[in-house]
């Protein structure tokens, strides 16, 4: 049975349709990345999934039961779902009290509550900050405590809205580890809203891709079928005439490969050639830039806004894609 099922759900603001989902199912215990450009309806969808905002039209089913958008009906549902916002706020009390808030309002006894709070803080690596006044935490610590606060209540669903968009590398790594651990346990359904495609790929096997409020059926980007061969001692997968990808540790023959968009460097090129082609698309996605190069097949590339500015590239420019073998995954026999 699906955990969530959305049928003909529509959200309209000021006459503009911001979400239009004829059908969307979210399975129990699975990890989904929620992707799409700014204004695609991702946060609106999270609002519905967290039972904070009722859809203007359509039906939502949770564990097979239709959701009735009345406060008395919604509270038990909200207690099974946890939303961590992109910029979470801490209640003006200690970290322990923040993390234990959900348990306290559920009437969980103090001793049991403390145990669960300690476990949740341990999971995000912040047990040593339990007694600190929460509003004094840094941005990254706040994000991690917010995740602990959500997890302390053992929710069925964890909704994460850009949890690593405004944190430093160290905190990003910890948050990604927490999400990976939850995904591997398979007890909690995860919906991770992110602009970072490589993060989405690494953490979530399933993708919900929205564009202009509509569900776009998009397979994992940069996934190609090709033929493995060897050139000058290096394994190379031939995708198209001018699209050849260096691959390590993959047997010759038909294979399917995927390329991490962040593992590709773009260099200026003079003329079309192997792994060279025109830059077809540039799109700002949060604090990163998504680009697409036409190599006979589209190759998606992702880089930080600062790196992109440094390249000085524009649509139509001829570029050469330098693909690191470490950025390539090989799936033989596909």
């Amino acid at each position, binding site marked *: 049975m699906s955990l969530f099922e959305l049928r003909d759900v529509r959200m309209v603001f000021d006459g503009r349709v911001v979400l239009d989902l004829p059908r969307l199912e979210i399975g129990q215990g699975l990890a989904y990345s929620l992707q799409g450009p700014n204004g695609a309806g991702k946060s609106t969808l999270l609002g519905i999934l967290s039972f*904070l905002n009722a859809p203007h039209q359509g039906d939502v089913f949770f564990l097979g039961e239709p959701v009735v958008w009345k406060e008395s009906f919604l509270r038990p549902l*909200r207690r099974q*779902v*946890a939303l961590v916002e992109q910029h*979470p*706020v801490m*209640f003006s009390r200690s970290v322990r009290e923040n993390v234990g808030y959900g348990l306290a*309002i559920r009437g969980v006894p103090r001793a049991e509550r403390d145990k669960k709070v300690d476990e949740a803080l341990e999971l995000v690596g912040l047990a040593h900050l339990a007694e600190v*006044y929460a509003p004094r935490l840094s941005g990254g610590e706040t994000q991690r405590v917010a995740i602990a606060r959500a997890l302390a209540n053992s929710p069925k669903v964890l909704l994460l809205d850009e949890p690593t968009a405004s944190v430093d590398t160290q905190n990003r790594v910890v948050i990604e580890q927490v999400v990976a651990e939850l995904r591997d346990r398979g007890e909690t359904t995860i919906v991770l809203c992110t602009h970072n495609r490589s993060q989405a790929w690494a953490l979530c096997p399933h993708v919900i891709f929205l564009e202009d409020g509509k569900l776009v059926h998009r397979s994992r980007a940069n996934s190609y079928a090709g033929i493995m061969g060897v050139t000058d001692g290096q394994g190379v997968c031939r995708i198209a005439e001018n699209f050849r990808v260096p691959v390590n540790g993959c047997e010759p023959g038909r294979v399917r490969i995927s390329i991490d968009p962040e593992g590709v460097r773009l260099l200026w090129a003079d003329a079309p050639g192997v792994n060279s082609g025109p830059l077809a698309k540039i799109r700002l996605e949060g604090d990163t830039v998504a680009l697409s190069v036409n190599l006979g097949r589209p190759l998606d590339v992702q880089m930080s806004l600062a790196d992109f500015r440094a390249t000085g590239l524009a649509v139509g420019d001829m570029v050469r894609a330098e693909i690191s073998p470490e950025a390539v995954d090989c799936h033989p026999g596909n």
Partner: protein
Amino acid sequence: MFFLDSLGAAFQLLFGFDRELLHIVGVSLNVSLWSTLAACVIGVPAGFLIGIASFRGKQAVITFFNTMLALPTVVIGLLVYSLLSRRGVLGHLGWLYSQKAMIVGQIILITPIIVAFTIAAVGRIDDRYRRTALTLGASSWQVALVVLREARFSIMAAIVAAFGRVISEIGISMMLGGNARGFTRTMTTAMALEYDKGEFVLALGLGIVLLAISLVVNVLLGYVQGRTQR
């Protein structure tokens, strides 16, 4: 020289433990504390509900309370006088020229202050607090408590401002209390009396005593805030 003499008089009054002065200060504190307490009981929940709820005419209600901030004490004095005078609707209570009458007048004076400031305090609270509490499973009542807790320092500031307003007002105390020595004489009415008598030094000395009390209240509030924020 005039201010130095006044300061000296204030010290003499404070540390000489003059019985009459202590009684005047006692009446001032008694009337001000009771009126502030009653105005809090009415004003904080009212302001909170108005601030947190969405309803038609909300802006008009807010405008009304903001306008009431400018209500002159003399108008309140006249209104309560007309109610409590012998021929008034509440004349049978016999409260006129008593501390009770002063308290009633002062409640009318400061309740709008507490309501208006509480509305503003609640309105300033980031909506993410409400959303966070909701998504953690809080009921409407529990969400309200979260918002109230986050707004507590602004509400406390409103209460302190209201206390400052009543302890320093004179119109209501004079009109409804009558400045009766030993009964309804407060620091401000005593100051007015000393001014009438030409005792400017003593009048200003009483003013300094009043400010000293206000300072103690604010220091206490600062201490409570510091303790809460750890």
